[in-house]
């Protein structure tokens, strides 16, 4: 079985994010960058497949030369190799542009299943996995909190607000996983040392036959008009218990209003 895990380099989730005023995109050089933490859940599923079936797992990253440390980080979990698509024209792509590049990279290789994290911690759109599936005309199994592959069949539990749906499909398919799916292991020393010797296939848009005009900021379907820093946190609502028991009702009303219950 061949598994592809698309991964992303994101600003350190513990740090402040900076948006460049001119390009209205994230300033990716402003602070430390890390492997997107949500990717770790996708990698864990892939490692489990590798352990169970001997699957060959390749990571796919769209990003500049500096992102190779993110690739090595992903490979340190014991994965087999990496594909990097790098091209100046990709800069500024929105979710659809990103999906076009990923879909083109996937169309260029063999695979049985693609496992995404359901969202990245910087953009948090959750759009890319479904868009990639659509572009490749493959089954889209998103928000998986459980996945199981048996021969040519794949079953996932698709999480939603009220529980989950059991969704079945055939391979090849595109899956995105949520954090409830597993508890990612740590890499180990051996994996870190082995990461540098794993094959890395670097491709440009031309290699993939993608028209540079179809990606990047110029052709984005979404337009950023303005942005503002998050306003300071507003004071919370305090429910006072005066001993009459009305506080429980007030609390319940508030929770209903907020759609918690």
């Amino acid at each position: 079985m061949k598994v592809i895990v698309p991964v992303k380099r994101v600003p350190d989730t513990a740090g402040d994010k900076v948006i460049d005023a001119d390009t209205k995109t994230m300033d990716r050089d402003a602070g430390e960058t890390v492997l997107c933490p949500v990717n770790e859940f996708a990698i864990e599923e892939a490692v489990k497949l590798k352990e169970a079936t001997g699957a060959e797992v390749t990571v796919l990253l769209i990003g500049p030369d500096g992102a190779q440390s993110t690739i090595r980080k992903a490979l340190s979990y014991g994965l087999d190799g990496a594909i990097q698509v790098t091209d100046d024209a990709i800069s500024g792509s929105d979710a659809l542009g990103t999906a076009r590049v990923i879909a083109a990279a996937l169309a260029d290789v063999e695979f049985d299943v693609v496992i995404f994290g359901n969202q990245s911690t910087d953009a948090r759109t959750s759009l890319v996995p479904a868009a990639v599936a659509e572009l490749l005309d493959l089954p889209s199994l998103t928000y998986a909190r459980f996945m199981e592959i048996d021969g040519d069949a794949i079953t996932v539990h698709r999480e939603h607000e009220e529980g989950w749906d059991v969704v079945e499909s055939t391979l090849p398919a595109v899956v995105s996983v949520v954090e409830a799916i597993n508890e990612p292991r740590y890499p180990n020393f051996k994996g870190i040392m082995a990461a540098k010797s794993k094959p890395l296939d670097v491709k440009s848009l031309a290699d993939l036959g993608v028209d540079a005009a179809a990606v990047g900021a110029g052709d984005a379907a979404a337009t950023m008009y303005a942005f503002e820093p998050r306003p300071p946190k507003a004071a919370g609502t305090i429910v006072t218990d005066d001993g009459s028991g009305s506080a429980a009702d007030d609390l319940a009303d508030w929770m209903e209003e907020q759609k918690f219950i």
Partner: protein
Amino acid sequence: MALSFILTDEQEEFRGLVKRFADEVIAPRADELNAEGVFPVDIVQQMGELGLFAIPFAEADGGMGADLTTLCLAIEEIGRVDQSLGITLEAAVGLGATPIAEYGTDEQKLQWLGDLLTGQRVAGFGLTEPGGGSDVVGATRTTAEVDGDHWVVNGSKVFITNAGTDITSVVTVLARTGEDADGRPELTSIVVPADTPGFSVAPKYRKVGWHASDTREVILDDVRVPLANTLGERGEGFRQFLATLDDGRIAISALAVGLIQGCIDECTRYANEREAFGTPIGSNQAIAFKIADMEVAAHTARLATHEAAWRRDNGLDYKRQACIAKLYSSEAAVSAAREAAQVFGGYGFMTEYRVGRFYQDAKILEIGEGTSEVQRMLIARDLGVGTS
């Protein structure tokens, strides 16, 4: 072989991994484990999965083929949040597995090394005895006599790390096996499996610090082990343990660096949070300068540690540098812990605060694996002081 203070990408990545593991897995449980004096088998085995116990060993033996410098990075990062697990790692690698890897036969390695390098088991090194400390040769009273194809070992050992855990596999014991031609004791290292009849450990010591590490008195009462358990040549024990301790000094130095760094991390956070008389206490030079001094100590101690480890990893003479690193780092750690406790005021006297715990843990660093006095003696002797 030019000296560089820049770690490789892999070493940085590895340091980051151990730091994350220490912060996420060890730190949240450190207070409870130390308060209850529990040796956490589950964490030790997880450290094994990370590869920590296999770092400096040859790949042919199941090791990672890395070096002492890399081991020091791991010890520092673990020691930064918990000194007990730092010493557990240091002793398991340096005292438990290293003698077997260095001097063991292929058969001995096959028998014991695998589990030690994966962290599934730990081993101890039985050197110190009740009647002695630094003067190992004269103080060794434990005997081993040949009886057919077995050794019969009798005696006791004190302060033996990792000797009495649920996962202790063996303790390598230094025993008197006769006298050489000049009448000096002949010392031999013998591997004693912990499940051998006659091998027992006393209840846990009531230590000042290192509460979550396992330290025991080992009692050897007519313990019969095969002659095949002899480690290296008969009579080589003294030379073996000297070499073992040289590396151990560097590793203890790394543990001390971790303690100082932990004090800096905690004090920096606290000095910015805690307000007194209307301002954060860190805005007072009395507090800020203490933390600046800790940083000077951590930086200096780390440089001394890395340089000693680098010399060792590159085949240069490193005995004096190991003594210097161990002496400086351990004394600096005691000072840093004392000042860190002062920064925290009353909370610094509470063991549930890391700096309070580190105040307890620091003292042993000036004693274990060669006291400060022994380090000074060796440095002076190496300079030729008092020899004429």
